[in-house]
């Protein structure tokens, strides 16, 4: 919801197709491409009703749509020489953007009120760094807010241990990676941990809450969109 409010703040009218579900990544990454294809096609159809920019508030979902759809649909047509699927995927990829990167130069920063300074730790997800290449935008958007002190954990570019089904299929090593990442985040002594990737955020906040008893001043996990919306004091509707 905060993503929508930010887009509206930037002057956009947001269309939210109710038919949307999941981008298909979980099954696709787990080897069940056959089952994910139906969901992928459904997503392409849903967002092809309009030719509007598709804004995705999570880097890994955005990466899936922008980079993996075409690959997934290559040679999947029932007819030989039929590349409609791939063409549709390419067309959608062309107009798919990660939310924060899209917003970076479009927000009315001059409207930000003077606030006491804040320590904010940024988790730049793997998808944001390596697939969408938007990690720099995440940092920049925070830097544009003068009261924010942007911090990065040690091993900032390392995976947080989520990796979708990896967290369940290889739980021990995933847990260690998550613990390491959370320790590095806590070491920054930030008040907030923010990220633009929902998967990482769910993983990090899940673990941070789990170890909450060990923290005197718990760090607050927040999606970048919600955090930015909060800085602009956009009203909370829900």
């Amino acid at each position: 919801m905060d993503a929508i409010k930010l887009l509206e703040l930037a002057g956009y009218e947001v269309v939210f197709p109710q038919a949307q579900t999941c981008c298909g990544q979980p099954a696709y990454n787990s080897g069940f491409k056959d089952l994910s294809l139906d969901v992928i096609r459904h997503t392409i159809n849903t967002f092809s009703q309009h030719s509007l920019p598709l804004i995705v508030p999570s880097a890994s979902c955005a990466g899936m749509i922008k980079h993996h759809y075409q690959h997934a649909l290559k040679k999947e047509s029932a007819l030989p020489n039929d590349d409609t699927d791939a063409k549709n995927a390419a067309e959608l990829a062309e107009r798919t953007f990660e939310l924060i990167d899209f917003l970076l130069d479009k927000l009315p920063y001059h409207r930000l009120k003077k606030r006491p300074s804040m320590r904010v730790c940024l988790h730049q997800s793997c998808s944001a760094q390596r697939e969408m290449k938007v990690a720099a935008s995440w940092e920049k958007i925070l830097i544009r807010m003068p009261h924010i002190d942007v911090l990065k954990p040690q091993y900032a570019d390392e995976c947080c241990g989520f990796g979708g089904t990896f967290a369940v299929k290889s739980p021990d090593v995933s847990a260690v990676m998550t613990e390491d990442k959370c320790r590095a985040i806590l070491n920054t002594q930030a008040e907030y941990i923010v990220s633009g990737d929902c998967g990482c955020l769910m993983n990090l906040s899940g673990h941070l809450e789990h170890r909450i008893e060990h923290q005197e001043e718990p760090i607050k996990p927040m999606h970048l969109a919600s955090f930015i919306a909060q800085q602009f004091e956009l009203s909370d509707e829900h």
Partner: protein
Amino acid sequence: MNTNFATRIRVALSDPSLRANFRGAMDFLQAKRRTAFSNEDEWTALQRQGKAIRQQTLHQLPELLEQLEHNCLQNGINVHWAEDAEEARQIFLTIAQEENAKKVVKGKSMATEEIGLNAFLEEHEIECIESDMGEYIVQLAEETPSHIIMPAIHKNQAQIAELFQDKLHEECDANNVDQLIGIGRKVLRQKFKHADIGVSGVNFAIADSGTLCLVENEGNGRLSTTAPKAHIALMGIEKVIPNLSCLPTLQSLLTRSATGQHITTYLNLITSPRKQDEHDGPLKVHLILLDNGRSRIAQDEALHTTLACIRCGACMNHCPVYTRIGGHAYGSTYPGPIGQILTPQLNGMDEAGELLDACSLNGACGEACPVGIELPELMRELRQRKHHSKHTTYTEHIIWRVWKRIHRHPKLYYAATRTLSRLGLSRTIFPKAWRQTRHTPMPAKQSLHQQLKARKQRP
């Protein structure tokens, strides 16, 4: 391996000194590589070149191998083809018998690990001593390499000092690396002197000149391939390259990616046995070309880039999983990301399918790969093969079927998310493996779809 991968991971994770050794070493190697490729544009250009050379090579693999064989024969190098590990071992044995060999020294070679050469020769009462310091340490400890470039990286100085004291009965100062290396060298010098055969791997084999290239830092490769009267080189068939002009690019990518060195200490180019007017060098040089499943991979359109690998180890140095569990946990000759990709292809899903689980698809390996192998893409492809070859569980099939049904039908999805939100039922969809170390997220009171439906209906 009689334990499963998950168990081996748990064992590795519970060893604090192993974890510290790996983290420290990988941090060091990552930093070295970063410095070596500090110019981003140069790195990108070099990686592109490296990728192009390797892709071109793979496209012409049969022709290049024939050309290599022809030119090696012209140069006086004996060429043998080994379909599998067993055939390669038998070729080694035949040559050893011809040479009446009792003692063999070996330079670092992962291909010889792949065929289990040391144990095999030992069975035939032929002593085979590793001459690379790391490999020698591993051999003394009766272990296997835990890294393809730094075989003993899992050990720290104190552990090595203890090992030398125990096995070589030498007084060792754990704080004096030079002394430790000196002790190892003293033993190895004698071995070089008395060896009947020197064995090595091959980093690159140049097809149009019939030249074997060996990249190394300790000089043990040079000694192993020149001091004994016969030299046997074992190479995977994918290590061929078209010509000498491809070498500078690849060797620069190799050493910088592996250890952050701009240039290797020893670059050996072996083109023939000792010639008539020469005073040293082996009298015979043998090249064994090992297939062992590689030609099958080469023909696989979706997976053939696996063979582009130049064995630099950068993928494991940058892998957050490898960094934590180390090489032994994989239980395969080749650990880390490339091992997870290669082993199921070489040894089959029955044996190695489980390796595919321990990857978060974070992409750090693919980013570091000097020849642009898209490791995460290959991982996804192999996971599909695992599913299609029925190596995934029935439960998993059911889960993904239900997942598909819900996400394919918007109304069902709407109902499902609404119900979960209303009942706050996130615990049901998060398995125990998740809940042990993490809280489950609390869904919003209303699903986003509901909220937006309501918002739209508002005047």
